[in-house]
């Protein structure tokens, strides 16, 4: 089969698409386009994909990461924007799209202009001056918050306070923080806190958002309420760069609600930390003082005076014992003396007893009697000796036996024991008996010689 002659040339899809690409991209470059964003998608790659539309048409749009990074606020569905970019044909899917280099919010210019005008006006009134700034209470008992009860701001504030303290008092005045009527609600809430004197310090704010979202905090009615508040106010509008009017008028500006909570309790945290430091310092000091004193005491206790329990009391104890001994001796002596005296008295008394006297006299009588007897006997004896002895002697002298001792003898007749007193009474050869003092002799007469 062969192609018919004069037939029109056949293009490939790629050829056509490339032709369209050249045609479109050459014609529609660096153009400004206004429309409403829909199907907005922030890809993880950082590129933005969305659709721009108006009542009759729509066009896909992409904003690559490098360009998207310059955006102050990430756009969202429904935003009316003006974009600057080029038309590209994306061959793989056969679609055309606008590649956005620059994106501007429609109406932003008016908003910013209004803000600047108000800023200048309030500045001229002197509302931003330091002399109007009220000092924050050091230790607020009750903290007021003007914000949305469902927003991130209140959660952030509560998180900070809870992390720092177990106990605090917080009173929320719930308000709309964006959209129609938000500014009026915020201003009224500030006035209400003042009217009823409900708290010691106020946090007025919300979490981050686009400049349009935050615009309530740029309105004059809010600025006036803040300026007129007797209660010190911390503004806490979460945005990165620009300050809003509320920040300028507020007594203290916090970059975020969390920061505002930190500021409110800053002094309290300082005080608590300071007290903890003081406490630990004092403890250290006292401990070291006690330790020092204990060491000193231990040193003292090692002295000999304290080592022996008797070291101090020994001498007095001995002296006491000595004194006790002396006292006892004295007592004994004194007792003995008394005893002796008593004994003497007793004897004296005994001697004075009538029976004793009787005995005494009886004995005396007895002695006298003895003496008398003795004397009589003596007398008798001497009498006997004096008178009788000579008689006896005389008697002795005449006793023949005594004569014999003197050499005499008695001559007895042998026959009849008659004494021979004459020579005539004897004959020759007659036996005679001679009596001598110590015996007898028998003799024979040999001669007779009369006289």
């Amino acid at each position: 089969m062969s192609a018919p002659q004069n037939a029109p040339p056949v293009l490939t899809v790629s050829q056509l698409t490339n032709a369209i690409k050249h045609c479109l991209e050459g014609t529609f470059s660096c153009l400004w386009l206004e429309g409403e964003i829909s199907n907005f998608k922030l890809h993880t790659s950082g590129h933005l994909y969305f659709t721009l539309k108006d009542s009759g048409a729509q066009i896909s749009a992409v904003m690559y990461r490098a360009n998207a990074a310059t955006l102050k606020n990430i756009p969202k569905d429904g935003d009316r924007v003006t974009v600057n970019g080029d038309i590209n044909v994306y061959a793989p899917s056969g679609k055309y799209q606008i590649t956005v280099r620059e994106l501007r919010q429609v109406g932003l210019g008016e908003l910013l202009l209004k803000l600047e005008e108000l800023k200048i006006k309030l500045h001229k009134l002197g509302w931003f001056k330091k002399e109007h700034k009220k000092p924050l209470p050091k230790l607020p008992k009750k903290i007021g918050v003007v914000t949305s009860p469902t927003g991130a701001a209140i959660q952030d504030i509560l998180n900070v306070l809870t992390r720092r303290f177990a106990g605090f008092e917080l009173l929320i005045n719930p308000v709309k923080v964006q959209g129609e009527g938000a500014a009026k609600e915020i201003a009224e809430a500030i006035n209400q806190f003042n009217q009823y004197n409900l708290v010691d310090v106020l946090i007025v704010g919300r979490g981050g958002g686009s400049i349009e979202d935050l615009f309530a905090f740029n309105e004059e009615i809010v600025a006036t309420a803040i300026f007129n508040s007797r209660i010190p106010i911390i503004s806490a509008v979460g945005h990165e760069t620009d300050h809003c009017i509320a920040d300028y008028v507020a007594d203290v500006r916090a970059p975020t609600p969390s920061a505002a909570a930190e500021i409110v309790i800053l002094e309290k945290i300082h005080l608590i930390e300071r007290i903890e430091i003081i406490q630990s310092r004092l403890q250290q000091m006292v401990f070291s003082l006690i330790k020092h004193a204990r060491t000193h005491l231990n040193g003292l206790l090692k002295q000999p005076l304290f080592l022996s329990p008797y070291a101090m009391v020994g001498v007095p104890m001995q002296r006491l014992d000595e004194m006790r001994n002396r006292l006892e001796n004295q007592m004994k002596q004194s007792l003995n003396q008394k005893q002796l005296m008593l004994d003497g008295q007793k004897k004296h008394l005994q001697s004075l007893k009538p029976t004793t006297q009787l005995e005494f006299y009886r004995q005396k009588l007895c002695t006298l009697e003895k003496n008398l007897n003795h004397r009589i006997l003596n007398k008798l004896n001497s009498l006997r000796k004096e008178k009788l002895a000579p008689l006896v002697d005389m008697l002795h002298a005449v006793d023949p036996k005594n004569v014999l001792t003197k050499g005499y003898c008695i001559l007895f007749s042998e026959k009849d024991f008659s004494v021979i007193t004459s020579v005539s009474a004897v004959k020759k050869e007659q036996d005679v008996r001679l009596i001598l003092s110590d015996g007898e002799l028998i003799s024979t007469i040999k001669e007779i010689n009369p006289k």
Partner: protein
Amino acid sequence: MNDAKNEKESENLSFELAFFRLEEILEKMNSGTATLDESLKLYEEADKLINTCSSRLNAAERKIETLIKNRKGELALTLDQKPITQNFDL
């Protein structure tokens, strides 16, 4: 309200005095001129002051409330014209 304010002020004053006294005690003990006996007495006093200050700092019970408003944004009031509050649920 005046009474409450005065009370608050005198409370703050006594707190500040206690704190001032604490610093004074710290300085005195730091100087090392106090005897052991004095130091112990000072420490005892400081301990009481610390307790006073700490309990003042940590006294508040955790109370999170919200004001109640009607549709017009006016505060709901009690009969004696005080704003009504209710506990705020996280």
